């Protein structure tokens, strides 16, 4: 057998040096996701269902309703209003799916192949989360394809900014999924936990009903109970959804700078927590 000389050892700055390794992990995540029919079908059918059934079904009840003295000031149809939230829903589901792949890797041994490699833990984690975030952003883009049916006119600029923000949010959510996966060690446990986190987070993010800031506190209190308002304001996802609304339908319920700030903190914070869990050999 011919023998080809030893691997040249090159020492460069870490992020550059480990780029191929991070890329390999990223590529594997993306390939696996593209080969997973079930996940793709879910990514398509979920938004379709929301736009067609929820969106169109609730549309007539959304505009111009008057509750006593209070009148909605959301100048959009219901489909338009929930469209950015559906993008976020698709991103959430897919991010969590990536975390499941972490448990999968651990159960079926592949994680060892990575752990015994000379790739440092932070690089492994970064590749994994970037991969998950890419897939999630892809699934978010599937929703954008439905924009015409939801009567949401999009400019190319909106789409670019939107995708960038979606990626940031997806990064944070994937990191959150991995933090959860590190604490729950079985598929069943993860399923229960994920459901207990995803849907409550989604529903309290002002995704399906508006929390209009133009209303006074007293007026809001007429519409919604105090605890719900507090939950919505405490939910970090609220601000991410709000940002997407700002980008896609030019409607913000909160300070527009809050969204990117919260998303950025989520991405950084959960990444650090995940890294902390992962460091221990």
């Amino acid at each position, binding site marked *: *057998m011919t023998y*080809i000389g030893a*691997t040249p050892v090159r020492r460069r700055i870490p992020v550059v040096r480990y780029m*191929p*390794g991070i890329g*390999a992990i990223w590529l594997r995540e993306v390939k696996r996701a593209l080969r997973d029919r079930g996940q793709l079908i879910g990514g398509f059918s979920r938004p379709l269902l929301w736009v067609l059934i929820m969106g169109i079904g609730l549309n007539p009840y959304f505009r111009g309703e008057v509750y006593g003295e209070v009148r909605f000031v959301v100048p959009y149809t219901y489909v338009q209003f929930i469209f950015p939230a559906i993008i976020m829903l698709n991103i959430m589901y897919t991010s969590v799916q990536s975390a499941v792949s972490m448990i999968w890797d651990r159960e*079926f041994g592949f994680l060892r*192949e990575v752990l015994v*490699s000379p790739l440092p833990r932070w690089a492994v984690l970064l590749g994994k989360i970037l991969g998950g975030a890419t897939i999630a952003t892809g699934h978010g883009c599937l929703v954008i394809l439905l924009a015409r049916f939801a009567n949401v006119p999009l400019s190319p600029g909106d789409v670019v900014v939107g995708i960038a923000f979606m990626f940031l949010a997806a990064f944070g959510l994937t990191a959150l999924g991995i933090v959860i996966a590190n604490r729950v060690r079985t598929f069943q446990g993860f399923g229960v936990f994920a459901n207990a986190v995803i849907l409550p987070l989604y529903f309290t993010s002002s995704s399906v009903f508006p929390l209009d800031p133009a209303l006074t506190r007293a007026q809001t209190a007429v519409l919604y109970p105090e605890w719900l308002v507090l939950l919505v304001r405490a939910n970090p996802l609220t601000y991410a959804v709000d940002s997407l609304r700002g980008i896609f339908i030019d409607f913000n319920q909160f300070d527009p700078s809050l969204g990117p700030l919260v998303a950025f903190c989520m991405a950084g914070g959960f990444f650090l927590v995940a890294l902390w869990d992962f460091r221990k*050999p």
Partner: protein
Amino acid sequence: MTKEQSTDAGGIRVRGLSKQYGRVKALDNVDLDVRAGDVFALLGPNGAGKTTLLHILCTILRPDRADEVTVAGHDAIRHSLRAREAIGVVFQEPSLDDRLTLRENLEFHGMVYEVPRSLRRRRMDELLELVDLVERRDDLVRKLSSGMKRRLEIARALLHDPRILFLDEPTVGLDAQSRERIWRYLEELRASRDLTIVVTTHYIDEVKGCDQVCIIDHGRILAEGTPDDLRGRFGTETVRVTPTDIAAAEAIRETYPTATSGRGDTLLIPITDAAMKAEFLRRCGIHVRDLAFETPSLESVFLSLTGHDIRDSEADARDVTLAFGRQGGELTR
């Protein structure tokens, strides 16, 4: 063995290594030296601590206490990334991605280990050739048999040209033909490369061709040496007899309490010297139908060192599965 020999780039040196799981001492003050270029076998029954030792050498498990763990010239505890560059590992349970093709699995490995692209491609072809999997290279790994998966894992572990190749029970669960094939590849590798091979097994017949054999049980190293050396030091000659009937077997057992049962309905009696041989024939000749004197075997070495037959301690499948589960949980915490 001198220090230079064991700590050079292809060797391993371990001193005072201990690891405990709860109350179980998985490794108890282990010393180990592996010379560069050797095929080194760690022989021990299930639960002996082989996997634990290998995981520590591969830097993915931390020992409780160790004076020294040097792998390929690097401190495996303090400079684990350096050590990892120099080793290739085939774990006891498969660690391939079965939703990727063979080539994609190798490609992944090459990128993670920083093997430049053109070199990576060349080695991939070369190694797939070595393990006879060239035609299957674009198939998904899940379509391979377990023997093929093992071979692919060996190829993958060599892709970055490591100095030391670790294999944890590479033949367990495989049929005789696949087992033989894997040992043939290891032989070929030893002949063609500058490679140290550390392999664990609980099949005694597999270690006969190895350079060094280390017998481990209950986390302790019981003996180390070449197979011949071990046979000479710890082996005993035995006589294997087939008694004429059950009563005869009883009579033999009564006369020789050291007799143990062997394959089928045979009995094994250790022979300590020539006089005992003659006496055995005189006293028990009428009780036996068939008889053979066996020169010291590694089986008898194992028996005399551990006090039990290696097959006695073979865990059932469920135990093995449970052990995998536990290991998986521990390693990734």
